[in-house]
């Protein structure tokens, strides 16, 4: 019976995830604690692996005699077998099943191999003062500009240096810095801001660039200059900069302000966001982000200024098992008649075993406008994530 639930959920249906800002509920407010990339996402460092195994994931597979420390010791790539400090490999797979127009006659189901990544991180020592990380992997074929060149690619690579204590410099292909790195890449808080993982839009999350990151106990700041994705067409290379300042406003309460400005040959985008996240109970968190987006189509000089809202409640049910409820809104333009697109997501986020994540989401989409009324649209999404 113990194994029944995870197996059942494996057959369910989804999304991609990179980092878990919700873990402020566990008292972890900085991404640097768990990730080689201090702004979140990508491969986990030793502490992140141990944390996932010994604090976040369920213990159901372990005997009571096995301590959390022993579980943490087994969290390495080869389990208990220790690798030299200078090398850290990782493998990651995500499979997702998506049902669109669920509960209707137009329901369609599709399974995606979302991610199959191999990562290698080399560092001078466990402190990682000098570190190089490279991720090669697969992402799904984009829907619009269908081209196989994106199927397997260098997903992320960066050189990280800490020239002065608590000052970090990243150079390479990394995710742009802006706002909360929500675990759902289809979120209206990421997709409309140019942080898609699919190269089907004009702009995607990853870009070559340089990041200066200062981390202090009560605040951190990231300054990012980016020059576009190396595989993008020249006209779509999005160049610019962003700044994010995150600061403590109370115990396990963080607020941040982000600005981004960038331009390709086709479009200019400027964004501003105010974000907030806090622990509401051990393992549970609340997050909020409100932002403005100004898009300019350069050829026609058409300007649209809109906004978005993101609210998420993250609830620890019991160790390894969480409930997530998110409400998102996006409005492309403040002008009268512009529609508000809403998305209400309720789902479960499980870590039934160390290295394993299972997610199911029930999604309600609705468009509200002064000139149109449509039926509710439901979606069911599920994901299995294995990270070795």
């Amino acid at each position, binding site marked *: 019976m113990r194994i029944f639930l995870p197996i059942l959920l494996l057959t369910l249906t989804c999304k991609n995830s990179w980092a878990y800002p919700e873990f402020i509920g566990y008292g972890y407010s900085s991404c640097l604690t768990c990730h080689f990339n201090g702004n979140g996402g990508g491969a986990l460092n030793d502490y992140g692996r141990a944390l996932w195994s010994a604090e976040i994931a369920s213990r159901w597979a372990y005997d009571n005699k096995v301590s959390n420390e022993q579980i943490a010791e087994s969290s390495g790539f080869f389990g208990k077998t220790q690798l030299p400090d200078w090398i850290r490999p990782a493998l990651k797979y995500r499979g997702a099943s998506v049902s669109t127009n669920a509960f209707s006659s137009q329901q369609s189901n599709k399974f995606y191999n979302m991610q199959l990544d191999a990562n290698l991180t080399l560092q001078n020592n466990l402190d990682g003062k000098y570190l190089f990380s490279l991720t090669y992997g697969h992402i799904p074929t984009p829907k619009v500009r269908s081209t196989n060149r994106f199927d397997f690619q260098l997903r992320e690579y960066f050189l990280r240096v800490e020239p002065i204590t608590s000052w970090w410099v990243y150079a390479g292909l990394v995710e742009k810095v802006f706002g909360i790195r929500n675990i759902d890449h289809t979120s209206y808080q990421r997709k409309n801001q140019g942080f898609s993982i699919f190269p089907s839009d004009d702009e995607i999350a990853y870009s070559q660039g340089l990041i200066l990151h200062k981390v202090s106990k009560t605040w951190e700041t990231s300054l990012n200059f980016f020059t576009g994705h190396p595989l993008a067409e020249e006209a779509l290379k999005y160049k610019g900069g962003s700044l994010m300042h995150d600061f403590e406003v109370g115990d396990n309460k963080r607020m941040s302000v982000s600005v981004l400005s960038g331009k390709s040959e086709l479009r200019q985008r400027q964004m501003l966001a105010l974000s907030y996240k806090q622990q*509401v109970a051990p393992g*549970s968190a609340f997050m909020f982000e409100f932002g403005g987006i100004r898009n300019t189509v350069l050829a026609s000089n058409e300007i649209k200024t809109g906004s978005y809202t993101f609210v998420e*409640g993250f*609830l620890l049910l019991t160790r390894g098992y969480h409930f997530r409820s998110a*409400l998102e809104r996006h409005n492309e333009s403040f002008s009268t008649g512009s529609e508000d697109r809403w998305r209400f997501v*309720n789902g479960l986020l499980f870590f039934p075993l160390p290295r394993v994540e299972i997610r199911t989401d029930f999604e309600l989409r609705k468009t509200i406008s002064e000139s149109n009324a449509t039926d*509710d649209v439901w979606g069911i999404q599920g994901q299995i994530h294995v990270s070795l």
Partner: protein
Amino acid sequence: MPRMMSGAFKGKSMSVSSLKKILASLVISFSPLYSYASSSLGIGYFSWTEILDATGAGTFKGFSSFYGNSIYYRYNTRGSKDFIESSILVGKYTSVFPSFGLYTTENKNFMGLMSSYRKSLELSPQVYISAGPLILLRNVKYTAPIGYEVKSGSDLNLGLLAEIQFQLTPKIEVKQSMGTLFFKARTFWSLSLGYNY
């Protein structure tokens, strides 16, 4: 003089306090469930969709989208873990018949009232989930083309409502609600921010 004023206020304060004690004892005497109670007042954003019907020479189906802002008051009976909540809804409704040439869109103001009685579960002192029946009243009047009658949902609708509520501080709460409406309507949802007192 200040001392007198102070005394006067002190006396008044005591009398109010005494009155509160008497009322509290009455409440406890007549309803042991209400051993402890507090209230919440807040504002929210809501939406739901109703199925729109036009009947006359032919039958046409469409949708009415209701959305707007609400003000809610909730009585929290912590002893019995029951929530009694009422909201005033003020917003707009947009109705569309996608395949009805004579009648396409309306965008009008409406007002409504919603009440719910919910059993709650305190998952932690900061997190509550609750569920229970709801009753929704709203007044809308469609302008129907000659020879047709147009209506959506029901003026009085019943349903079930589930909520998750986070206490950001002991005084400030955020809650997300989702519910079903039984009569020719779809999912109700809302997001609210409230103050506990």
